[in-house]
């Protein structure tokens, strides 16, 4: 499990992250951009988790859980904003 599997997994996740950035750039709609951004946050959470396994440090997981919180709040806020036309309506 150590480096034999974790390093290729990290490389693959990084490739997915780059491709996700391209999807984010070529999205035609605001909602598709929100969806792609949510997926990117999930990919970054995966990268942080794998880094934590690889190095045996738990600090990366703090960042992963905080990023999960932030991405949820950001997604819901953006969706509500788009739905109502304003942040406080």
């Amino acid at each position, binding site marked *: 499990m150590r480096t034999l*599997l974790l390093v290729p997994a990290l490389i693959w996740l990084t490739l*997915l992250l780059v491709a996700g950035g391209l999807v984010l750039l070529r999205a035609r709609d605001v909602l598709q951009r929100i*969806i792609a951004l949510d997926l990117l946050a*999930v990919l970054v959470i995966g990268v942080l988790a794998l880094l934590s*396994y690889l190095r045996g440090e738990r600090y990366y997981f703090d960042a992963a*859980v905080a990023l999960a919180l932030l991405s949820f709040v950001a997604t819901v806020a953006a969706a*509500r904003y788009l739905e109502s036309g304003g942040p406080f309506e």
Partner: protein
Amino acid sequence: MISVALDIIGALLLILGLVLLTISFVGLLRMHDTYSQLHAQGLATGPGVIALLASSVATEDAGIITFAVLGIAFTVLTSPAAGHAIARAAHNRPDRP
């Protein structure tokens, strides 16, 4: 003995998570409708990241596994809510295309 078993379980969960993320990504690339893209993306934000975080059992580190369980619980709670919010916004937004 149990360490080897945990290693195998962790590796399988890691591969499963990567496969789910890749399938979800291909779906996101191939679909052109917002609802279909949301359907494909829900595979990554739910089961994909849960499998990836659950592969922390192979580390046998109590702190890491605790945070992974926290992350899994949080994902189970928030991923359907976020998907629902996006679908709702797509359904009744003022300037629907």
